[in-house]
């Protein structure tokens, strides 16, 4: 009888850490080839359509960055909490509430505020996300309620809130009873950076957030405190780092970034609210944060990768007429290999003989 056991490596190699994503990508390619083959597809062609085609035009690159931006922004906010073991999986709900708050401003003050409308909407989006995040923070610090459950369930509450609003109070009176709001006026929308493309100035917000996160990770004392709480909670308690402060900060930051991302999406490619305003950014951002190992650059690369997977998935569905589930299977394979590679960097597998 044999038994497999994971054994911690003394010192993970830096080279391996950098090489792991590439190895994972190669393995994904190898593992998915038979899958494509069995559906009668040419694996090489499929991979080309998945990874190369979406980026072969300027517009493709614009779409790529446009989708990556909210993913990265939300993931940065989540990473703050994940470093301190505060598991916010409610970014989707905070994103939704942020979008709703921003949309309310856009619909009520679309005429008057002009220059100040967009900044005000950004503020409203961030505050909306924070308000939504305050619920789990309050429940966790006051009543020790598990933040995973509370944030998860608030996603559904937010989705229903949105559905109610676009079917009722915020519905476009001239919209033929479609469940959607009126379109935002021009002063409530980001202007595209280039004519004919959808990418807009909101990506700079994401870049700025990345710099802030980098400073937080690298040199802020609160970042240090949160790291210690995450990897050694007993040591954090010993040193007197207050747990409730970490929880509040984690949830406020991730609420703000998710709400801001919701606002950016509403005031960017969407231009109005409808019952579905996200292709699952709030959940995908959790993956982005972990694929990026909670590091600033890693999160950026992770966001770009996941965005490409979205686009590639759509591209193969459209040009090869494959089912959506295949695209998802492929995404799953890639994440599986990425995360396994991560485990194998930190641990080695030992085969032990059992007697």
């Amino acid at each position, binding site marked *: 009888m044999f038994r497999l056991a994971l054994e911690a490596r003394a010192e993970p190699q830096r080279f391996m850490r950098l090489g792991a994503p590439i190895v994972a990508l190669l393995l994904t390619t190898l593992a998915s080839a038979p899958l494509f083959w069995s559906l009668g597809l040419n694996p090489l062609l499929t991979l080309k359509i998945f990874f190369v085609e979406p980026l072969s035009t300027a517009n493709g690159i614009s779409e790529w960055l446009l989708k990556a931006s909210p993913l990265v922004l939300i993931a940065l906010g989540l990473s703050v909490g994940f470093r301190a073991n505060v598991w916010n999986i409610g970014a989707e709900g905070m994103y939704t509430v942020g979008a709703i708050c921003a949309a309310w401003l856009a619909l009520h003050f679309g005429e008057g505020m002009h220059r100040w409308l967009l900044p005000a909407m950004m503020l409203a989006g961030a505050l909306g996300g924070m308000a939504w995040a305050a619920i789990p923070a309050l429940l966790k610090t006051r009543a020790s309620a598990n933040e995973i459950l509370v944030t998860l369930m608030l996603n559904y509450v937010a989705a229903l809130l949105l559905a109610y609003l676009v079917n009722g109070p915020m519905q476009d009176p001239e919209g033929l009873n479609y469940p959607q709001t009126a379109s935002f006026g021009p002063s409530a929308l980001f202007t595209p950076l280039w004519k004919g493309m959808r990418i807009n100035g909101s990506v700079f917000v994401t870049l700025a957030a990345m710099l802030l996160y980098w400073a937080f990770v690298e040199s*802020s*004392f609160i970042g240090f405190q949160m790291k210690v709480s995450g990897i*050694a909670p007993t040591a954090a308690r*010993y*040193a007197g780092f207050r747990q409730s402060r970490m929880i509040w900060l984690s949830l406020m930051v991730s609420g703000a970034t998710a709400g801001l991302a919701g606002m950016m999406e509403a005031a960017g490619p969407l231009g109005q609210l409808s019952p579905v305003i996200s292709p699952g950014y709030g959940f995908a951002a959790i993956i982005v944060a972990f694929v990026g190992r909670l590091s600033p650059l890693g999160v950026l690369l992770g966001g770009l990768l996941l965005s490409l997977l979205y686009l590639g998935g759509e591209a193969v569905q459209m040009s090869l007429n494959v089912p959506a589930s295949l695209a998802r299977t492929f995404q799953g394979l890639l994440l599986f290999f990425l995360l396994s590679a991560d485990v194998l960097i930190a641990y080695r597998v030992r085969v032990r003989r059992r007697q």
Partner: protein
Amino acid sequence: MTASAAGGPQTLELRAITKRYPGALANDEVSLCVAPGEIHAVLGENGAGKSTLMKIIYGAVQADAGEIRWQGIPKSIANPAAARRLGIGMVYQHFSLFESVSVVENIALGMAGTFDLRRLALQISELGDRYGLPIDPHRLLHHLSMGERQRVEILRCLLQQPKLLILDEPTSVLTPQSAQRLFEVLRKLAATDCSILYISHKLDEIRELCDSATVLRAGRVVGSVRPKEVSGSELARLMVGSVPPTVHREPGNLQSAPRLSIRRLSCLPVDSFGTALRDVSLDVHGGEIVGVAGVSGNGQAELVSVLSGERTCGSEMLALEGMPVGDYSVSARRSLGLAFVPEERLGRGAVPHLSLGDNALLTGHGRGLLRRGFVDRSRVTQFARDIVRQFGVKCAGAAASANSLSGGNLQKFIMGREISLQPRVLIVAQPTWGVDVAAAAYLRQQLIDLSRRGAAVLVVSEELDELFDICDRIAVMYQGRMSQPRPRAACRMEEVGLLMAGVGSAFDTAA
């Protein structure tokens, strides 16, 4: 020893056992012989290779080279089950027992094959009576004291009718009186021709109990002696390689007002197997060291976590320089001049994977290491370097991770960090646990020096020798109560031992 002279084979013979770990030679050609009925000591400091050697004999670790002969025949021992089949039993320093089930169930859990609980219980009682290890087989484990738990471990081994019993630092959890009773048991056992390997660094015990001793230093055998025929200092010199240092203590300048006062402190245990504190009162003045003795698990863990602020209590139950602080947080207490060295170094006193710099920042951030909420890296590195230099921490520099340091060096670092904060009150739990003799003497001297500079120092320790070495006054904890502290000069080791076992009126309620 004498048995082999008569021609019979040795119970156990090790020939040139070598075991190499990455970066360290744990055992370097170690040889030793144990005759039937012999009590053989393996003596050495922490890190000398004793534990590795025992694990090799017990099959938990495989040697790289060398030969094990069991009753004269070369054997390879693949795992602990194989060792038990040969007749080798082992009592580890840290027990492997389940808290929530009974004695007999614990023993049955470790046995191969089927068992009959009723018969097993009977066997346990019989065996206990025969060797003077009385225990009720149906009691739940978490009701047992450490000494009783050790009995369970020993009985578990005895049920297998071992020919060799290995005990790893068995007296570290016992009061002096229980240690004496353990020695009786071991002598009885040896009289039935069972051999005993006795691992320890306590010289007096070895001289009292053991027929022969193998002394290890840095993985090599540096001497084989008959401990009853050599002096304690001779043994110590063999073990340490030089004359062990001693501490110097001058009388302190006692301040009149206490810096730390505990007033009728009561609190619930940390978990369901912990001990509640009951009506504990104690004053510690600037300029003195007060020691808290006691067998572990009598409320010490609860006491230090309430003192440090990791747990809070009623405001008036605790005062720092007269100010009630029972409900203050850790950081509020630290800003009033409290510092604390916990028993657990990795994971509590230090973060394992972070650098010494980061670990200096952990509690040292109040010392100008921050600028507007951002960490001043160069000052942090400087602070860590100062600690390393001043306290002689052996490490690869301020960037070395905490878990790359040996236990003793990490303790020097943590103690150094807390002392560098120039505390007005210092709480220390197990200051020299697992630390080698030279480093332990150094750390004890640091504590004395700190108190003589005016700080109030409270030391919680299970090592009575240590407390007698450094303390001005000594109190004893038993089942969550604390005895009146007495000046060290007025304390006798035996009395303290009795208090540790709960004998005497010191713990009667005041009412």
